[in-house]
């Protein structure tokens, strides 16, 4: 199961999709919206994707992970649209024969997703500021946006 969706993530269905009697380990990772980041209170997060490229990029990610780790099955689902603190933004499930492989594969998948897959988040703070988040410079204020630090 590899998809983008604007609906709440059903992480149980995502986990079930990777379960397999050939696997002794399943790791599920959930990326959830934190209420406070670096002392700033988040009211909501807004996720936008380049959908076509993001979908093919998620598929490539799963294929590439299978060349690095003995993955039995993998699933990646990312939510788009407006999320509140506590909501699940991304769910990654992976099954492997042994446990260390499942942790390594799950971590590689989320780390690489965050580096490569064309999805962006915009943070709406409780004080009214709205900022695009970028990994290298979270407070980088791009021209044209409705706020800045």
């Amino acid at each position: 199961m590899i998809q983008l969706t604007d609906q709440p993530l059903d992480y149980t269905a995502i986990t079930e999709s990777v379960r397999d009697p050939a696997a002794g380990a399943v790791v599920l990772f959930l990326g959830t919206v934190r209420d406070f980041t670096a002392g700033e209170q988040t009211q909501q997060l807004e996720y936008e994707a380049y959908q076509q490229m993001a979908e093919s990029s998620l598929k490539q990610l799963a294929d590439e992970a299978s060349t690095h780790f003995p993955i039995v099955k993998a699933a990646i689902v990312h939510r788009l649209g407006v999320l509140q603190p506590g909501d699940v933004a991304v769910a990654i499930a992976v099954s492997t024969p042994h446990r260390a492989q499942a942790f390594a594969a799950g971590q590689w998948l989320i780390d690489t997703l965050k580096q490569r897959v064309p999805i962006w988040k915009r943070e709406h703070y409780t004080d009214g500021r709205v900022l695009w988040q970028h990994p290298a410079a979270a407070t980088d204020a791009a021209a044209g946006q409705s706020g800045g630090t």
Partner: protein
Amino acid sequence: MTPSGTVTVLFFAAAREAIGTAELSLPVSGPVILTEIQQQVLQRAIGLQPLQHRLLWAVNNQYALPATMIQPGDTVACFPPVSGG
């Protein structure tokens, strides 16, 4: 769907907001390298210039190097560093 003789350029996130549009159509007279498209975009979309050293570029849904050949009808995308997850 894009007529021969043009390249579609898509913009996302802060890049889209910086230039105020999600899409541009650039006329091309034949195959060109990505660098040439990038220069045309930055000339037409001055708002992007402050971001230019951080922009990422893709051609037909794949990240692309500056020397990538672009054919008429191809889709180029331009966006800031990704921040999903």
